[in-house]
């Protein structure tokens, strides 16, 4: 009975600790549905573009990033934390049937990028704009004469899926078929999206992009990272190392600026900051639930162990009547229960791993990483719980007189 209960408790502890230690990473990945948290733009290009729609001349459009360098994003120190990235090339275009210019955006939809490291990475806008609702289909990067238009623009121009439109930009004219109409719920609803190569061709800017959105797994900001974000040079060497080697959003931005020529990487605070808040709360929640349920399990087990020892009052009485000293009797019982507990704990550990995987698979569709540090934690926990359960009851039994106990009172 004790072995079984210890096994239950140990499996509970194993499952909860494993889930708790991995929950930050998993939730962080889920929060990626909010889209990019870093925006990379060329140095000296300003957000004036977004505000006033001036994208030609005026020191805006002549600044670009190079498409060929984008693979380097996966070579930075925190390369593993870069989940997705998508380049954008913005231009103004004249659309047939409309008086005003529309914003034409070239991008990767689902692109396979060959990395300098020899690996490949599947990335693109499809992964990063999970909240878009699409009527029709997403474009693929090979669609040389198809486009996607925003819902508001489509309504204004009276377009529907399958229609053909002519777009004219920088003197180049192109007939495109509308493959999809999307609703993004923001300014993008007024834009036309085409594959990056098409936009580069139309605007005569081969191999160039205007901005890159990066989605990265980050650690919540703290005092150090805030100071670093203001000015990395203000840190001492040691602080700088800590900062550089932690996945703060400011550190990742800094590293992106190192690998891309003339680029400025800015954290999108709306996403970066909020991710930190939610992540912290979720971790704390899991931590508290874990601690409290472990406390419950511990109480339950030590309760049972106490009951188990009390039950053996007759045996102890007999041993004492036969002349056994207090110490050997205590050791005997303690060792017995500890061995039972160890067997139960080992069985419980593996059962707990199973529970953790069930939780991981159902909730996150991903395996929970098994942390080796859980083993000593569970072992110590089981040991302490058995000890607290045994010691008071053994002491109580030893204080009884053998004759009385044997008599059955």
């Amino acid at each position: 009975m004790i072995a079984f209960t210890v096994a239950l408790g140990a499996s509970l502890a194993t499952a909860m600790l494993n889930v708790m230690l991995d929950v930050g990473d998993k939730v962080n990945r889920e929060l990626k549905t909010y889209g990019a948290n870093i925006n990379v733009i060329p140095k000296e290009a300003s957000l004036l573009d977004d505000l006033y729609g001036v994208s030609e001349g005026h020191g805006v459009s002549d600044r670009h990033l190079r498409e060929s360098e984008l693979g380097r994003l996966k070579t930075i120190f925190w390369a593993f934390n870069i989940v997705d990235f998508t380049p954008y090339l913005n231009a103004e275009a004249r659309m047939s049937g409309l008086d005003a210019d529309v914003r034409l955006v070239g991008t990767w939809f689902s692109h396979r990028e060959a990395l300098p490291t020899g690996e490949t990475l599947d990335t693109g806008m499809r992964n990063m704009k999970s909240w878009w609702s699409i009527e029709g289909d997403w474009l693929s990067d090979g669609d040389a004469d198809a486009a996607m238009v925003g819902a508001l623009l489509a309504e204004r121009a009276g377009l529907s899926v399958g229609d053909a439109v002519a777009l004219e930009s920088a003197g180049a004219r192109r007939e495109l078929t509308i493959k999809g109409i999307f609703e993004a719920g923001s300014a993008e609803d007024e834009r036309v999206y085409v594959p990056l190569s098409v936009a580069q061709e139309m605007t005569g800017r081969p191999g160039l992009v205007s901005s890159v959105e990066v989605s990265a797994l980050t650690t919540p900001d703290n005092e150090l990272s805030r100071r670093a974000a203001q000015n990395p040079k203000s840190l001492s060497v040691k602080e700088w190392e800590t900062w550089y080697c932690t996945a703060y959003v400011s550190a990742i931005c800094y590293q992106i600026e190192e690998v891309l020529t003339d680029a400025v990487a800015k954290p999108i605070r709306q996403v970066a900051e909020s991710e930190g808040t939610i992540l912290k709360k979720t971790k704390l929640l899991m931590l508290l639930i874990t601690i409290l349920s472990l406390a419950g399990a511990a109480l339950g087990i030590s309760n049972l162990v106490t009951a188990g020892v009390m039950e053996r009052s007759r045996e102890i009485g007999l041993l004492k009547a036969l002349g056994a000293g207090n110490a050997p009797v205590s050791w005997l019982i303690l060792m017995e229960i500890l061995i039972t507990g160890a067997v139960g704990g080992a069985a419980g550990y593996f059962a707990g791993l199973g529970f953790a995987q069930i939780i991981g698979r159902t909730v996150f569709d991903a395996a929970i990483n098994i942390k080796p540090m859980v083993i000593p934690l569970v072992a110590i926990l089981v040991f302490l719980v058995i000890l607290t359960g045994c010691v008071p009851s053994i002491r109580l039994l030893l204080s009884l007189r053998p004759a009385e106990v044997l008599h059955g009172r």
Partner: protein
Amino acid sequence: MTKKSMYFKMITSALIRRRSGMLVALLAVAIGATILSGLVTVYCDIPNQMRQEFRAYGANFILVSATGETLGRDATEAAVACIPASEIIGIAPYRYETVKINEQPFMAAGTDLAEAKKTSPYWFVSGEWPEEDGSVLIGQEVADVIRLPAGSAFTMTGTNPRGEAFSRDFRVSGIVQTGGTEEAFIFLSLADFAALMGDGGFDVVECSISAPQAELEAIAARVTESAEGVAPRLVTRVTRSEGAVLTKLQALVFLVTAVVLLLTMICVATTMMAVVTERRGEIGLKKALGAPDGSIVAEFLGEGLFLGCMGGILGVMLGFGFAQIIGVNVFGRAVHFQTALAPATVVASILVTGLACLIPVRSATEVDPAVVLRGE
């Protein structure tokens, strides 16, 4: 002495005389019930609490004009009246105009700064949020271009919509960083803005509402109906993603709760079984004295039910404390007491204890009393 009163006497004296054994059992039941009611309370309260946290992402609902003009004050008030007051985190109206500083054009935004702080908690302000009239927040972009640190003064010039030129001094109280377009704006209080530009309607009203997508859609429908000229729009990026992440989180807590409950209930049951098994001798003695199986089972069941009831009640109280600890520590808010949960916890603990009693009692009654009494 009637049969009934004898029955109660036996149960109560069993509980009182066998103190240590019963205390063990009661403690086990109470712990189980505590974990049950505590975790379920937390689980029920999570969507509410987490939704508040998700408001860190900023506005999830915006009001714009349906006609292309600005939003009138009356129309805005009518629209805001459609949103349940308890769910509003913040409502910040915005007005935009172009102004000039050192003859360079910039965009000025007039807003209720206190509300803007609530709808956009992610703004990182170095310096202070403006407190009094005449002080403004400027975006990082603007600060870079005109090289103004926090605390410095500058003159804003321009012409208002009626064609009158103005020139006024302002103080920069803080510089705002967001990584988005807000960095190219100058934020003024509505009063300052009206002093420059005259009274006028709002260009956009940002609302941060603590409600799921379906409810936001219902609110949008009500706004369209009752406030003329107002077009409500959901910020889908925020609402959809929130729905997706929240579902995952809830599923996580649900599964964790289920696993913890399952294990705790088995734990409680084994403890109860151990306590009852210990009393096989007593059962044997009763049978030897001629008690029918039915009455023995009834007696143990009565004890179990009593224990389950007491433990359950204890557990409801402790469990609420436990949920409160989590609520206060994690979210900094009190959790709501789930009224329906109290009887459910008591019933569940009675069921588990009753069941856990029955199994060993049944096996004990099936054995020959002589064998049991001999202690085998």
